[in-house]
């Protein structure tokens, strides 16, 4: 089973501007601009690793969305974007040599 988890979430500086957020990532020196759903993914994953299904279930409930295929694809896109930024990683929980 593939699990997503945050990378160095505790080092991020997050400014909340209401419905948008600016996030400073010390590892890269970059500043990112995120919406509500993106920041909630990071916060959720910072608490514990989760599968894409678990993430979608929680976020769909939180944002009153239907967790259909399109919703899942959008969450996956955000996760892969986060992965390229070095904010999240995925690992196979069943393999003892990973994480």
């Amino acid at each position, binding site marked *: 089973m593939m699990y997503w988890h945050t990378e160095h979430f505790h080092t991020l500086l997050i*400014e909340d501007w209401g419905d948008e957020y600016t996030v*400073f990532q010390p590892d890269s020196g970059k500043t990112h601009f995120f919406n509500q759903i993106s920041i909630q993914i990071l916060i959720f994953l910072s608490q514990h690793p989760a599968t894409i299904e678990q993430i979608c279930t929680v976020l769909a409930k939180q944002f009153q969305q239907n967790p259909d295929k399109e919703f899942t694809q959008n969450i996956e896109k955000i996760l892969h974007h986060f992965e390229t930024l070095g904010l999240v990683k995925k690992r196979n929980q069943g393999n003892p040599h990973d994480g």
Partner: protein
Amino acid sequence: MMVNQIPFKEFHLLLNQGLRVAIGPFNVCIQTTYKPLAEQLYQLYRHYRTAQNEIAEFHVRIVTERSNKNPFEKNVRFLLDGQSPFESFPQAQALAALEWGINLAIAVRVSHLLLLHSAVVEKNNHVILFPAWPGSGKTTLCTVLSYRGFRLFSDEFGLMDPQQGTFYPIPRLMPLKNESIAVIRNYLPEITIGKSIPNTQKGTVAHACPPEESIQQSTLTAKAKWIFFPKWIADSTTKIETISDSEAFMLLASNAFNYEVLGAKGFQAVAYLIRTCNCYKLVYSDFEDVMATLQRLIDET
């Protein structure tokens, strides 16, 4: 001692050796033997304080050299600590080269302050920022405001102490460009503006003197309260539009010269500014109209 308290002969001699002048929080040591530049500086720097016995943060020189293209002509070259960051300039552009060079020195050497590319004035002990890239008319607007009841901090740099959240004044000559020169000569006929310097990389440039009071008060820092992202559009009425905090953050962070260099400090400084300031987009063309609008907003908040 102020420059205008020194006879020209002595001023010229000091420039030959290295004249130190206090410009905001910095002392700049200027050295040149080029007499026409000395004459221009004597007129335009007359309200600045000399700092001969103080440490200078920047050592700049304007030297003359033979032109490569025409051996019968001479050019001038700007040097910062002996290094030449630019190609040489025609002699007639010596003042423009010096002023651009000092700006460059500030932009590349100052790393302890957040450096915004912004016109900055002060009113009622609060700073107003006009962050903008070239071509937005910020120098022209800043020149008008600084001679109509606002204290000049800078037409070019917002120098913010990221720890204290305060801005340092750095009132320097304001380089008016092209059509703005005639506009300001007509609108503010009483102010001192240097000779027009044609054919520079930015067209024709003429340097307006900062108001004497702004130079005298250049040790008085202040915190920011308003941020206007200005845009001059011909014949437009003045329009003020509130912008979201996240958009203001993005605009301000991308406007800073050294935001990325400062890292977390830069992020926190920009966030502090957005939290403590009222942020607007400003479109204008008429000086009276824009001043009335600014005054109304200042009175309301």
